[in-house]
């Protein structure tokens, strides 16, 4: 931002062009309220709120319905750019007091606003105007409170009792490999190695290009997260939390050692992608899309784009099965972890808001079954139908949605009130699912080849492969970074980035591993673990206190 400007105000220059651009700022579609079931007719009111979804708009059928019931409309202020550009805008707002009436921010940014006294405490308002919020949070209600006992922001509560149907494990193996091996059970890294080895021996090339048996992306997904998955650990970033709630650095754990050994073996046999250390988020997708990578560790959000490219080119057998793979049969799998709330894009009410109670009433409505149906399913007859007493998206509706990539926004399903959804896999009071993403829906979306592979394993969805859902208080990467931890982490990260490829390519693994372990240790491993230990203890204590244990 090196805009070198000097501000000169020339009197008399402000004419003509101002008028036609300033007309009509806020349009409030005043509903001559027809809702009789409400005790009083809600008065129309418009709040400003920031959003990182630039295509969000309020003139959609669903938002209009929300306005009809609550009287509340929102005017979206789009925040764009990377997180640093967005951060600039939030800082500007805070410094100038120019923030919108309702804020939708990450906890980290909200902390700044709270410390600057820009947020309203909400607990009394919730007490008075938010019965459904209280009811749905239930035993988790106290989790909303900050250390000072006030509630400054609201977010959703995840009430899922079963694994969401769209969940999937992160180890991906090509259908073709499984098919050729006769759909063997693949639960351990050794079994994975064997099928890759066999397939590679028979098919050194695919469509004339060399086959790549195993690949990955980015250092975390090459050396860190796979070790957590294979060790059956929930994703606490670069850490493992043991049964005594002690935090350990995963980068030097025994699990890590085992996984490096696995990579080392792949490398020695020429089964590892030669570019694995240099692939980026820009270059990896096109490589996957070519269909010659047999297996890898890819999270769903990353794999879906290249996989749909594979699909669209008709190579259905080059899609991936997503299987949880462990070190050995003795590992207990606890990787399918869930947090009771999802505090990421929280709604807070700023001091600029003259009618905070209306916002709470609005959010309270979102916590009712009616509200949930509206924000997650849409409008009955348009976005979903009722069949045999269950909510259901017919094929025509799905077709209609798929034909228009903007449908979510035109209909209002994508708007940020949707963050208050109870989540996939959750059920409403009527016993039916809170969101359309049900098992039945996922199955309908699969192509025939996918169904064939799933059938061979006697499963219906990829989620069925996962271990049972477990709740954890929080993920370690969600909590605020302890003071001084950033510098230490960075130093360790550097050693890790530098040494990891050496370990993978090492000819004398055990010796190099010991050397690497010492290097990490001398970079401040103990201090870092201690810092996170303390921070984690606070989280766990607060959680237990809030839950009354």
């Amino acid at each position, binding site marked *: 931002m090196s805009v070198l400007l000097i501000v000169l105000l020339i009197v008399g220059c402000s004419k003509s062009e101002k008028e036609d651009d300033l007309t009509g700022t806020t349009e409030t579609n005043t509903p001559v309220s027809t809702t009789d079931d409400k005790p009083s007719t809600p008065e129309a009111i418009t709040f400003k709120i920031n959003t990182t979804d630039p295509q969000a708009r309020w003139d959609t059928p669903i938002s209009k319905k929300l306005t009809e019931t609550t009287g509340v409309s929102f005017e979206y202020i789009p925040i764009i750019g990377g997180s640093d550009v967005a951060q600039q805008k939030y800082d500007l707002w805070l410094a100038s007091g120019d923030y919108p009436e309702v804020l939708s921010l990450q906890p980290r940014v909200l902390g700044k606003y709270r410390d600057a006294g820009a947020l309203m405490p909400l607990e009394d308002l919730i007490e008075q105007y938010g019965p459904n919020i209280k009811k749905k949070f239930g035993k988790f209600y106290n989790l909303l409170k900050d250390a000072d006992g006030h509630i400054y922001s609201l977010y959703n509560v995840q009430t899922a009792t079963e694994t969401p149907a769209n969940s999937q494990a992160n180890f991906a193996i090509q259908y073709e490999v499984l098919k050729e091996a006769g759909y063997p059970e693949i639960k351990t890294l050794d079994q994975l190695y064997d099928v890759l080895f066999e397939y590679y021996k028979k098919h050194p090339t695919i469509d004339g290009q060399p086959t790549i048996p195993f690949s990955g992306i980015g250092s975390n997904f090459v050396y860190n997260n796979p070790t957590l998955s294979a060790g059956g650990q929930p994703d606490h970033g670069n850490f493992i939390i043991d049964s005594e709630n002690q935090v350990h650095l995963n980068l030097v754990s025994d699990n890590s050692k085992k996984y490096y050994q696995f990579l080392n073996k792949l490398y020695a046999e020429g089964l590892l992608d030669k570019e694995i250390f240099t692939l980026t988020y820009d270059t990896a997708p096109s490589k996957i899309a070519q269909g010659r990578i047999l297996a890898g560790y890819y999270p769903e959000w990353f794999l879906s784009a290249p996989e749909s490219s594979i*699909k669209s080119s008709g190579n259905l057998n080059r899609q991936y099965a997503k299987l949880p793979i462990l070190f050995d049969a003795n590992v207990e799998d606890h990787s399918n972890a869930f947090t009771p709330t999802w505090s990421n894009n929280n709604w807070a009410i700023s001091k600029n808001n003259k009618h905070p109670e209306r916002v709470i009433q609005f959010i309270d409505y979102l916590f009712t079954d009616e509200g949930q149906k509206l924000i*997650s399913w849409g409008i009955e007859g348009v976005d979903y139908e009722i069949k045999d007493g269950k909510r259901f998206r017919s094929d025509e509706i799905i077709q209609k949605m798929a034909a228009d990539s*903007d*449908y979510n926004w035109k209909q209002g399903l994508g708007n940020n009130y949707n963050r208050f959804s109870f989540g996939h896999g959750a059920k409403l009071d009527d016993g039916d699912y809170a969101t359309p993403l049900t098992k039945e829906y996922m199955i309908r979306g699969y192509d025939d080849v996918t169904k064939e592979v799933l059938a061979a394993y006697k499963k219906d969805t990829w989620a069925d492969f996962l271990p049972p859902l477990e709740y954890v208080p929080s993920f370690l990467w969600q909590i605020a970074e302890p003071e001084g931890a950033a510098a230490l982490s960075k130093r360790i990260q550097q050693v890790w980035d530098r040494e990891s490829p050496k370990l993978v390519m090492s000819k004398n693994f055990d010796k190099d591993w010991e050397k690497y372990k010492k290097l990490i240790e001398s970079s401040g491993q103990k201090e870092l673990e201690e810092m996170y230990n303390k921070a984690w203890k606070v989280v766990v204590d607060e959680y237990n206190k809030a839950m009354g244990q």
Partner: protein
Amino acid sequence: MRGRPLSSVLFNIFNYSFLLLIGIITLYPFLNLMAISLNESLDTVKGGIRILPRVWTTSNYEIVFSNPQLLSAAVRSLLRTVIGTLLSVFMTTMLAYTLSRRDYKLRKILTLVMVMSMYVSGGLIPFYILIKDLHLTDTFLVYILPGLISAFNVLIVRSYFDQLPEGLSESARIDGASDFQILFRVLVPISMPVIATITLFISVGHWNSWFDNYLYNTSQNLSLLQFELMKILMQSISQVTGSASSTGHIDATLVNTTSPESIRATLTIIVTLPILLVYPFLQKYFVKGITLGAMKE
């Protein structure tokens, strides 16, 4: 070709092929983007697009142009570029002339103040508060006024004026010309190269800028083309990563998403073409306007 020595022919062949090569190298990024923008986006993900699209489509453009805000935003961008550039060039020239006058008492101190502004900036937050207190937020004027004078451009023009022979303005003054006449009838016509240069700087700057739009004008009625395009880009990125709708509903495999790469290429082509049109009009001034023969000393 008759009568030409072989060496000259060889030289020409070599010369032209060399220049052609440089031309292609220079144009390649642009051609590549053009090819990507005209290629089917799921196919683009596979990579390997060079100069020609592999699976021809115009759907990327259709997606971008389906945005209803685009036309009005383009009009505002155009207005901003034209009005902003004209005013800015006018003001810059006036100020540069004043500062180039040796008999102007504040010449030194004003120049110093301006140069300071190039090295030390007030920072984003104070600047924002200033703009807000001047009631410039949510106005069209905020696009034009704050950047009306750029110290850098003034210095360029001033140093151009400085190296013009002083006899030119002196003789005009003897003939009874006022300062305005000296500036606009004598100096500006022979300074077209530098005027064209800053016109180009300023107009490209105006055309490309979106940050002031983002910071100061939240109203849809004031958004500019670049900002709208930026939004489309963000939207395509969020569609792919799914970050915007982590609790979203539509199964990604069902939706025909466009890859951010395609959208980015398409947008680049869309925003580059209009401003490219400015170059041919200004180009002739880069060679003209030399003061050769204006003075005999």
